[in-house]
């Protein structure tokens, strides 16, 4: 465990480099992002666990296909019944997968020096915090961007009022994928969803720029990070 703790220290230090005070001025078009999506046994961070984490790298608006992260995770306790139809991961599929304590450090090293982006990323954040807690440690400070909230902000801020009214509550990943005419390689697969989310974020970067939101600081001022 000491070795792992040493790693934690190092990761925390590296991730801490993104503290907002000095890095907030960085433009959204040069920041490195980790766009992630996860599959869980359910939606309750207290009782449910990770089944898979997928992530793709973006450098500014460019999606780098060579840098991806995907791991299946074997949960400690099985709570399967309700979620299988959604993600399609069966007990058999993860029987030989590593436990979360092995996957989390390698995922966090994938995230080093990046801003995390996800659709409805709050739930992923809670699960990551919980997983770190269970390992007896804390998640390093990270910057999180939720593409769902960005979408709503973009429409309510610059869409016409009628548009916003007509489309209220229509910001699911599926809706955005349809609106942006993105072709998903697959659905409800953590890596595929992360890739699709990256494509959404790619478009939102340009739309945010049109609204004068160019840096992490601007994003934070708009309440989006």
């Amino acid at each position: 465990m000491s070795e792992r703790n040493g790693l934690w220290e190092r990761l925390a230090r590296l991730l801490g480099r993104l503290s907002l005070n000095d890095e907030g001025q960085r433009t959204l078009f040069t920041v490195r992002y980790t766009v992630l999506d996860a599959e869980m046994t359910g939606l309750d961070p207290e009782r449910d666990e990770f089944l898979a984490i997928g992530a793709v790298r973006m450098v500014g608006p460019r999606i780098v296909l060579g840098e991806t992260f995907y791991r299946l995770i074997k949960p400690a306790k099985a709570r399967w019944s309700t979620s299988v139809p959604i993600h399609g991961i069966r007990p058999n599929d993860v029987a030989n997968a590593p436990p979360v304590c092995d996957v989390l450090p390698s995922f966090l090293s994938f995230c080093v020096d990046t801003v995390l982006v996800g659709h409805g990323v709050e739930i992923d954040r809670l699960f990551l915090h919980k997983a770190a807690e269970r390992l007896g440690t804390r998640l390093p400070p990270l910057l999180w961007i939720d593409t769902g909230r960005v979408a709503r902000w973009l429409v309510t801020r610059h869409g016409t009022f009628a548009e916003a009214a007509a489309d209220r509550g229509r910001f699911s990943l599926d809706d955005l994928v349809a609106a942006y005419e993105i072709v998903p390689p697959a659905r409800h697969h953590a890596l595929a969803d992360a890739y699709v989310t990256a494509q959404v974020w790619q478009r939102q970067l340009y739309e945010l720029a049109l609204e004068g939101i160019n840096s992490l600081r601007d994003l934070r001022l708009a309440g989006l990070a």
Partner: protein
Amino acid sequence: MDDVVLGSVVNFLRRVPPFQFLSDERLRQLVKRIEVHYFPRGTVLIRRGERPPDYLWVVVRGGVKKVLRSVTGEEHIFEVASEGDLVGVLSSVDGMEGQLDDIAIEDTVCYAIPRAVVDELIASEPAVARFFLGALREWVRASLTALERHEERPEDAFVLTAPCRMVARRPLLTCRPETTVREAARLMSAERVNSIVVVDEEGNGIGIVTDWDLRERVVAAGRSPETQVVDVMSAPLVTIDADRLLLEAVRLMIARGINHLVVTEEAKPFGMLTAFDLLVQQGTSALFLARAIERESRIERLAQILEQAQRQLLPFLLSRGVRASEVAQIVSEVNDRVVARVLALLEEELGRPPVPYCWLVFGSEGRREQTIRTDQDNGILYADPPDGQQEAARGYFQRLGQWAVERLVALGFPPCPGRYSADNPEWVLSASEWQRRFRSWMAVPEPQAVLSSLIVFDFRGVHGELALATTLREFVRQELSHSPRFLFHVAAVSTSQPPPLGFLGRFVVERSGEHKNQLDLKLGGTGAIVNLVRLFALEHGIEETNTLARLTALREQRAVESQLADDLARAFEFLLDLRVRLQLEQLQRGEKPSNYVDPRQLSSLDRTLLKESFRVIGRAQAVVRERFHLEQAGE
């Protein structure tokens, strides 16, 4: 395991040359080194003359136009790269600087292959190297052709959209009014032309003497060859400015029934344009058709001529790059001639009309925007008869209307389902009855009544005493100037149909039914523009009925912001053109022409322009709503 994403990219590239030449293993390695880029519409990927880009792009979705801009700022589009096409080939092959501007014409997704990777591929894969070499050669060929085309400009311009200057015969043969007929005839035969223009001391054209004038007015009339030309010439001179289009010349010749047109520059005669020149131009000639109509006295032959017009003339003109709006004007001329011919024949059958009358057309015919023949919208306006003769006059014109509509139906002009036609006594009225009719529409504006009367506001006189139509137009203009409530209702009705564009600029298509996944190009497109522009025209007392002519007038009066007027005109041209092209295709497949289109079946360029056009309509409707303080539709 993580093949979901890479696998989808590999599957895509497997179908794209030159990547299709690579082994699966090689392709997999390649994909791990590429990126996914996104370019919003209007982004410049490569700018001519600038440092070559760091990537070779494969378009996954969207489109990128490759453009060469001439010194005059004219834009030549070499090609549009769409799904599976490459952008930046030349630059990535040998580091050539950008040769063209490469601009995203819609939101575009590309796979981006770093140049270093491309270099490795060329070095290690002979098939890839050959492909790029071929692309290079192809580009050289394409640019040479484009250059040639550019130099051939004068030849290329031998189409109806060229200015008259291009085809006008020069020098122009002229003589003075006191020249004798003998001398004029000698000049004409020496120059081997069949006309001579008569000019005054300042060089202003005052008349023309043609072969026909010599034959009919001198020889046949037994006049002396010493007669001065001023006594036999045709005057006034019908002229057209050298910068006007040949198309307009054709229209003018058809409308006036003449064979010679003097082309002027700064109002001075400059050259001669003859029907013959234009016949040579056209192959299938609108003029020829018009002449045939003029001569024809048998209805069934007219039908054949019209059929020919629809089957040959329309596709011909469109294929020669003539815009749909211009084709529509020619078609209107032809149709007007047919109507005039039919009425002239009927007047012989029914006897002379008791009072002067004018045949009116409404709707798209009134606006000269009909291409594919749709239904007839027409009526009769006759001068107020003297006391005691009202009933006789009414009877005569109702019969004339009845018969004329029947004949026109037989000629292939479909009857009007809404009965806006002259076989309905409601549209056969005397001048004062018409005035009362218009006044009642404007006095009690109910939305439904407004809606159903609007197409009548686009009336235009076609045959008979056209001054009657002009007087009625002036009356309507006067009445409108003190009917603000009516205009308010017109504004409400005219903005009630939003363009079919929704959330984030997606097309709104029918969800079910016969037209599932299609949208109506007329209802939310051309129709919406016609309604908006008619509103502006009525508001500002503009007498034109043609949508583009209305826009020009509005622009000149500064009644509509010039940018908006231009955008609306462009959107209208585009939508009309798209509609006509699709309808022609449907006709050729033996289908009934419809206004529906599935946007997915359009080229990416058309889709982009379509969205652009719909956006313009949305903007114009917002302007109207604001000006008339209208609520947003559906709120």
